[in-house]
């Protein structure tokens, strides 16, 4: 059984990538993920704000109160600080690279052209095999039009591509007016992979505290739909390879993903819910299914039910939607 696949130029032993999550934030659990069969790891995301925030925070609090009062010209010893949060991340990559045999993809989350771009270069130096760029931006300013937002994304990607040589993927969101067009622009710019899709954190309201709050948002197999749709639509239309990151919980979800045209999938919520060993379960079930159905390789099924190949292309398009609604009415 050949489970091999290629994603953003990286050769993977199977299509399962452990997506960015707290499980990919510790060396121990990353090792367990590899043991369970993960073909690649996306490290937990480091946010643009995190990189700058810690600098700002330390600078601020070491400065605050200093040189204000004769008896206390400062409140902290003047030490060399080396382990800034972002540097931790770099060290982690360097350490993991020694211990792991599977590719390691760093994950950067940001949108401005700040100092964090430079950080992408450091990730490469530290040994990351690839870089996943998450550039979800929530435009709260009503004066900001869609074109401006799109350009923001394009500029961020361009700057990162100018900085690194390792393959870069873009973790997109599904909220563009024309996702396919954005996907193509990312791909044409040089993104080697597209990850479909980013799930923004849930927003909720705490009725006791009367505050808005953000909560963790586990996906389920039911959330696979959008990713399937757009993978199927984009299959064979782009240079960039495709990866489904939302709604992959079971071997069945994985199969659907591959058939819609994905080159790989990322599992995150299911691992957080069931532990690292869940990868082994999915792989076992996948192999069993493929054996039963007499598939010999993953390549064989890739894109087999995409817009390009499906017997029912309308299933991914508006006409079909109309039909479902119509049927429902009758």
């Amino acid at each position, binding site marked *: 059984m050949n489970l091999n696949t290629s994603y953003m130029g990286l050769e993977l032993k199977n299509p399962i990538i452990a997506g960015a999550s707290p499980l990919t934030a510790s060396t121990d659990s990353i090792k367990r993920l590899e043991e369970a069969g993960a073909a690649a790891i996306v490290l937990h995301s480091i946010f643009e704000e995190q*990189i*700058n925030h*810690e*600098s*700002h*925070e*330390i*600078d601020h*609090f*070491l*400065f*605050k*109160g*200093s*040189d*204000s*009062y*004769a*008896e*206390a*010209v*400062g*409140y*902290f*010893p*003047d*030490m*060399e*600080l*080396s*382990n*800034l949060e972002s540097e*931790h991340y770099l060290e982690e990559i360097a350490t993991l690279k020694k211990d792991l045999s599977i590719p390691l993809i760093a994950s950067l989350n940001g949108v401005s052209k*700040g*100092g964090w771009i*430079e950080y992408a270069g450091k990730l490469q130096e530290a040994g990351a095999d690839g870089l996943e760029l998450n550039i979800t931006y929530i435009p709260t300013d009503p004066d900001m039009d869609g074109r401006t937002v799109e350009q923001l994304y394009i500029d961020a990607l361009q700057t990162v591509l100018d900085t690194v040589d390792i393959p870069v993927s873009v973790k997109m969101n599904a909220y563009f007016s024309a996702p396919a067009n954005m996907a193509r622009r990312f791909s044409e710019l040089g993104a080697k992979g597209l990850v479909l899709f980013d799930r923004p954190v849930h927003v909720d309201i705490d009725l006791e505290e*009367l*505050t808005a709050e953000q909560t963790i948002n586990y996906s389920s197999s039911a959330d696979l739909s959008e990713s399937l749709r757009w993978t199927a639509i984009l299959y064979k239309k782009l240079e960039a390879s495709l990866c489904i990151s939302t709604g992959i919980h079971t071997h069945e979800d994985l199969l659907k993903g591959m058939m819609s045209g994905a080159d790989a999938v990322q599992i995150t919520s299911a691992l957080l819910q069931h532990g690292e060993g869940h990868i082994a379960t999915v792989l076992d079930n996948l192999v069993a299914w493929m054996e039963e159905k007499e598939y010999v390789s993953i390549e064989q099924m890739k894109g087999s039910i995409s817009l390009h190949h499906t017997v029912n292309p309308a299933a991914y398009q508006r006409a079909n939607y109309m039909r479902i609604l119509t049927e429902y009415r009758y």
Partner: protein
Amino acid sequence: MSKKFETIDGNEAVARVAHKTNEVIAIYPITPSSPMAELSDTYSSKGEKNIFGSIPDIMEMQSEGGASGSVHGALQTGALTTTFTASQGLLLMIPNMYKIAGELTPTVFHVAARSLAAQALSIFGDHSDVMSVRQTGFALLASGSVQEAHDFALISQAASLRSRIPFLHFFDGFRTSHEVSKIEMIDEETMKSMIDEELVTAHRERALSPDNPFIRGTSQNPDVYFQGRETVNSYYDVLPDIVEEEMQKFGELTGRHYRLFDYIGAPDADRVIVLMGSGAETAHEAAEYFAEQGEKIGIVKVRLYRSFSAKHFIESLPKSVESIAVLDRTKEVGGTGEPLYLDIVTALSEMNETDTLPFEMPRIIGGRYGLSSKEFTPAMVKAVFDELSKASPKNHFTIGIHDDVTHTSLEWDETLSIEKDDVLRGVFFGLGSDGTVGANKNSIKIIGNGTDNYAQGYFVYDSNKSGSMTTSHLRFGPNLIRSSYLISDANFVACHQSVFLEKFDILKYASKGATFLLNTPFSREIVWSRLPAKVQREIIDKSLKFYVIDAYSVAKKTGMGRRINTVMQTCFFAISGVLERELAIEKIKESIEKTYGKKGRKIVEMNYAAIDNTLEHLHEVDVPESVIGDRPLQPAVKGNYDDFVAQITAKLIEGEGDDLKVSQIPVDGTWPSGTTQYQKRNTAIEVPLWDPDVCIQCNKCVIVCPHAAIRSKVIDESALEKAPENFHFIKAKGKTFEEDEHFTLQVAVEDCTGCALCVEVCPAKNKSQTNLKAINMVEQEPLRETGEKNWEFFMELPNYDRSKLDHAKAKESQFLEPLFEFSGACPGCGETPYVKLASQLFGDRMVIANATGCSSIYGGNLPTTPWKKNADGLGPAWSNSLFEDNAEFGLGFRLAIDKHTENARNLLSSLKEEVGVELAQSILNSEQHDEPEIFEQRERVAALKEKLASMKGNEAKRLRSLANYLVKKSVWMMGGDGWAYDIGYGGLDHTLASGKNVNILVLDTQVYSNTGGQESKATFTGAVAKFAAGGKAQLPKDLALMAIAYENVYVARVSMGANDAQTVKAFIEAERYDGPSIIIAYSHCVAHGYDLKYGMDHQKLAVDAGLWPLFRYNPQLALEGKNPMSVDYKGPKIDVKNFMYQETRFKMVEKINAGAAKEYLETARTHAATMFDRYKNLEAYYEKEAEKIAEQEEAVMQAETAEKTGAQS
């Protein structure tokens, strides 16, 4: 070898040498010497080695007494050992200093010389401390400048090893210890050449060792002790020669030559001044200047003061000398003169007597100068020379003050300046929080390190920890700068906060034609009319070049927030001409890269952007020919103040305290209470504004306010008739209050520091706009006028009847008048809410002993003080003795008060018939258990005093003076953890064991906050603090548990942010308990490293993490057969990390040593769990004990009942 220059301060100059030439360093913080210890700790934490190739061991001790003991021990076991100290700290070392010297042990103590606490504490510089140890046997070597401090640190080390005489190397506190100056550094090779390894070996071979056993430190009898003391004479006889030889050797190695006594001036001088320390540098500059003008004058700088070599001194004097003035920077009350004067008189007289004086015996006069860093200027030097010219010069004079009582002072010409034209002199006025001082230190380094110019910076801070003004005095010039005095005629004046122009006469510092830079929100077109008329007049009269910049808008635009340091620094370089503009900007950028590079690119880029945006916003103002408008300066004081405040306090506030005459100063250190109310500091940019519609009247904002600037009252409707238009009130909620009573909440907008703690704790949210609460921060300035009126009206409203309030309820306790207000504590201070609470509950009968530290500074630092009286003239009586003795000091209060009470009761008993038996009995029998009872007792005592007024006889007279002691007095000892856990622990422990009715409040910030955050035994595991630069590995001491062990001590651990109800309850119980009580109060602090508006949240986090257990142990309950132990928290609810990593003090460890950080977390986690188990077990144990007692009582009762029943049957 090429010369290496660095621009550093005196403390660093010394620490660099001391760390390189020692193996063990025992330390303890005390201003102004602490930085030497901090730097040594930092060097060792970074792994820096000494010249012998090892990293010196740094050990923080519990006091200077402890430090000197350890130094003594380490020396006796052969390690090269040093310590740093000042002032009272040095006095604590005296016992060991005698021992160290008596045993001929080489060492150097480096002392940043400071005033001693006498009528008041002072942190500033003079020689009172070092003069107090001149008899110990230590050699005393004086440095007068940063360069000398660096050089003499090495010379003294070398000379000590050779002579075996221990050295005290001293330099003037602040003036030298904190002056930043460009100096030539001693390289390691030179150090190695100066320190003879053979002598180090010899020292080691004299060590106590079981391999070479002997006994040292015997007890001697009359037969040999005397002779023993005389055995060392020969060592002291040769000491001056040894020091001179070492100086010579040093001169050959470095090119910098010193002598035991250095003469400067005309070779044929007839008048000579003798002095030591930094004043000698000023005198040097003045002597050269006036000698060049033909005056026959000169000065002698004393370097080696002990052993005093008369021979070398005489050799230094010109043969032409006719009169000598000896200046001492100390005061020896009741003596025949100050120490240096006496030494000189003796030396010359003795030589004169033996005909060995190579010239006619000169006339010698002595004088005092410069106490507590009082300015000493060339004009004063000139006045002393002029005095020497008189036929009958004044002896035992003072210079620098105006003594209109005993007329000791000499007058001087305050307008005289000898500053040279080639020196750029800049004076900068900034706010503590705006980075002015930091930027100026940076500018000095840029010029000092990057050009051939010499550079000097000295910084003056004000008395408050919040909204404090800083003044930077900077000199740059092509020649060595000796001017160790403040700049009075600057050619560059910068005012970084325009509000200062309205408060202080800033332009008095500007010389004619100087440049004046102002940070102002007003453009160059309109700024003129916004200036006070006096300022406009000075700009015109002095022909100043006037520049403006809106630095805040540039800083905001470039992401710098309210830090305008880089912007103002760029302006300085752009218009001062000290460097070519392009070069200057390049240098600033280089230094920014160096300073901020480690903190990330973003910070560097932000600063670059600030520089790049500055010049286009910097404008020269066309100065009009006339003054526009008549805008006045702000008055220094406001309100209904007395003459003392008008004549004295106001002067201090205006910065004109130097002009006050001796007759105007209280003779015994007694100052009036409650003067902060007259100093309207207006430091807040934003203040809270009350929204009565949202308020739930919980008073949480009132209880947490560190400055008592937000208060509530419940008043009768009738009192509100004349309320100002914008004075809000609402119907009072709660069963305590009547139908027609109203609640109002008011903010003292001019006294508020804008910390926003109140807004953060407010639990009430606006239902329509949940981002708003019942109080919200708004801009201060528009509120000033109405705020002032409202506050005035509010303060005149009556306070609620204390006897009707339940003081044990947090909410109701806040209707009690605070008798501690508007202190100079940091904005958002975590200590003062507890202090204020105590003043509300017990203020009218409190006596407070306050340990030195933050609480003694915000509690008692001039110009204005926060402890005040109520309308009846009653209030806390407060005093600070020292740091180490506070518990003993307070215990003394208790003993005296108890004695007064006992005498009063005895007198009353014997006068029972005369005053009326009923009145006497009711007074004698009153238990005064609670507030209403105390109130009644006060009424009774008033009646008694009325009767006594007309009674005759000695007993009645005595009782009249003691009658007030029949009303219960509440004795408190307050202080920080540095006092309670470390330096004062012995006394505190003894006080706890005394069984006396005292109350101890420990304001536990887990560091020595006042001196800048040094580790104490209260410091949490895993926290970075000064002296624990790599993070504290040990567990904090559990002072509470230790106190419980006495069983008869009331003990509470409280945290207002976690549980204010428990806090208030603990205060009431502790005070009510008739025995020793200790409350250990978690206090958040600027040294924890987070925004203090979240202080109360963090207090709660500390409790939730289990690192600050809340409990009360009340022995009174045990006496009543109940469980005395009440654990008031639910154990660790969150992981320690969720508390610790919210604060820079813990987070920093991760950035310094990630491996250790992990271990610390684990230790803290285990500690939290262990403490909870321990306290719960204790609670369970006492519960069982209580049950046992109940059972026993039950059994007794049953037996009694059975007995009765049996008898009946």
